């Protein structure tokens, strides 16, 4: 695939920033992220100075909080996204409500785990695989499977939500499960 992100490279640079305050590494990160952050921020803030402030604030936090990044708990892109989203949230709140309370780090803590600690690595991979297989299902079956298994809705709730007869929900689930079984092989019974 072209344009694929080099996750391990970004991760190494972020660690170098955290451990040895490596300015070279930071410059690489900056060049990777800054223009993208700027483009996203311009979509959220009409004012150019505010969009620039998002870049400045986000990248400052990357420099000052790099030690809070934990490679075991997610990609560097996910962590930088969290930093950017938090900066944006606090700035928007300040602009709208005239309140400068910086709540974002309480709502989306950066030092804590992103993925539930009870998930072990194997399970995580298995679920990723399952999700990608679910995505290959026809749309009608996909929404039933996702609602039933991932969002833990009952068949009755799904029937109401999707405005379909209960029998349709049941037959879609049955069809989808048959397909999933074929795709995942016997060991996923």
């Amino acid at each position, binding site marked *: 695939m*072209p*344009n*694929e*992100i080099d996750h391990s490279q970004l991760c190494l640079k972020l660690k170098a920033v955290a451990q040895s305050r490596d*300015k070279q590494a*930071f410059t690489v990160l*900056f*060049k*990777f*992220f*800054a*223009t*993208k952050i*700027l*483009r*996203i921020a311009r979509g959220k803030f009409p004012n*150019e100075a505010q969009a*620039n402030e998002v870049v*400045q604030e986000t*990248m400052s*936090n990357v420099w*000052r*909080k*790099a*030690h*809070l990044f934990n490679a075991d708990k*997610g*990609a560097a*892109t*996910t962590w*930088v*996204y*969290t930093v950017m*989203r*938090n900066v944006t*949230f606090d700035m928007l709140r300040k602009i709208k*409500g*005239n309140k400068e*309370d*910086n*709540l*974002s780090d*309480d*709502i*989306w*803590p950066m*030092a804590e785990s*992103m*993925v*539930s600690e*009870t*998930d072990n690595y194997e399970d995580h991979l298995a679920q990723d695989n399952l*999700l990608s297989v679910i995505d290959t299902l026809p749309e009608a079956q996909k929404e039933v499977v*996702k609602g039933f298994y*991932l*969002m*833990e809705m009952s068949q009755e*709730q799904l029937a*109401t*939500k999707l405005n379909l007869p209960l029998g349709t929900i049941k037959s879609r689930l049955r069809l989808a499960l048959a397909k999933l079984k074929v795709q995942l092989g016997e060991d996923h019974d």
Partner: protein
Amino acid sequence: MIKHHPTFELLKSFVDGELPASLSAGIAIHADMCAVCQHQIAQLTEQVAEASFEFEEAFLDRFIVDSNDDIEDMPVINFDQMIDDITASNALTETVVKTEKQISFNEQSYTLPNALHNMDLGRTTHIGKLSRARIQLDENEIHTSLLHIQPGGGVPEHTHKGFELTLLLDGSFEDENGQYVKGDFIMLNGDHQHHPISPEGCLCYTVANDALHFTQGINKLLNPIGSFIY
């Protein structure tokens, strides 16, 4: 067991940072108690991060040349200057050790959820077995509170023209639709009439908006809930 969760649409907007602080905090508190939603949030975050930073790689290659001229051709911001400013200080942000905060209602003490640690709490008002402390988020028509119900207390039958989120922080309550436990995330709209009572007492985090000033953005966002009957 927790049975009531935020909808997929709400989780997605939460991850995108597009919900008001009141609802964002509600989802964060729920996710702290619900491994299923926590996992889904982690996956959504990973996906949106990937989507945000993946493209324009080819475009960006032009700037990865170590030449100042190329970078200064970039719009409005002087990136080199910004890098110098940021790295001028080597200080790391100190990790604040989180201490538990307590809140008490009627001589009963509760641990305040992390997401609420830095929010301003108003004075507690009492009506019968109900005690309410407003959380001052200044979100105009959206009102956020901590609601405590003493054992045997309840909320008179009511409807809301807007939406009403009840997140059970401790204890339990029940209404016409069944029993709710700690962690349940119950989003109701104007179609619902309910009369919750709490035989054992409970503490809830509630968010409701005033129908008179319904904002279009949130209204639109909550539309899927209209058809989501518990």
